[in-house]
């Protein structure tokens, strides 16, 4: 492996690591989500009635391992693979 190939591999690895970190910080969900259920603020009367907080849906994109994180990782691996192929050291033909 030549120096250019090593750099391409390192950049690819950094991209994957950064995206995996972003996914983990976003909640580490397995599947991507379009929104989350959140608890509404309870009135004093609802508390007196012993009810649990009402839930409401809030639209919010949450990145998941499937399909987005794995998809991105696959693209980076493919590009890195192509770069490794094209950056390989070509043997000079002996005449």
């Amino acid at each position, binding site marked *: 492996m030549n120096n250019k190939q090593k750099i391409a591999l390192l950049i690819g690895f950094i991209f994957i690591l950064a995206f995996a970190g972003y996914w983990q910080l976003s909640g580490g969900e397995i599947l991507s*989500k379009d929104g989350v*259920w959140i608890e509404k603020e309870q009135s004093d*009367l*609802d508390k*007196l009635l012993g009810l649990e907080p009402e*839930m409401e*849906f809030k639209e919010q994109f949450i990145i998941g391992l499937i399909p987005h994180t794995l998809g991105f990782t696959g693209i980076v691996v493919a590009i890195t693979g192509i770069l490794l192929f094209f950056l390989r050291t070509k043997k000079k033909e002996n005449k």
Partner: protein
Amino acid sequence: MKVIIKFIVIAVISAVAIFPQGFNVKATGGQTFSFEDKYGRNQATFFSTTPLEDITGITNNIKGSVTFNVNDFSTLNGKISISVASIKTGIDLRDEHLRSANWLDAESYPEAVFEIKKVSDIQVLEQNKLKAQVTGDFSTHGVIKEVVADATVTYLDESEDTKKRAAGDLLGVQVKFNIILSDFDVDNMVLGQKVSDDIEISVNIVGSNAQ
């Protein structure tokens, strides 16, 4: 001495078992509470957890009524209906799958119904609040199975505060129970992968005894 202690213990247990347990509120006798809320504030939640995904389904379309003697909660009877067709999970496509014939078949069975049969293990928590186990027939997808639910029930006498929600005395009911989907002939091929077979159902409803 031991005989006397045994006698006292048995007497106390018997007294707890024999004496009716209910609410100590202004109202007395039989009361009927209706759970229809035109503002859709009553809520039933369905929760499925699998390693792949947690799914929460919610509906505010609940109706039904219960009747009981205020001083004896074991007399409770009635039924609660939950609209299957209006369950929302937050993803429209998933809601369509849920309502489809492969799943809950909302067109043929638009409602899940809990019909109360028996109340046991009543514990008075406060004068107007008690906990109990409610046994009933739960029906969905055309199948009826007996389930046992944990219920916490709170009785509020009518006041200026309660009138903001509805006229009459209010009954706050919080119920939790689990069902096994395959027991109700819901055997979709993705069951157990993205949706658990074991579903936790939680119902939060408020009824009024106003005529």
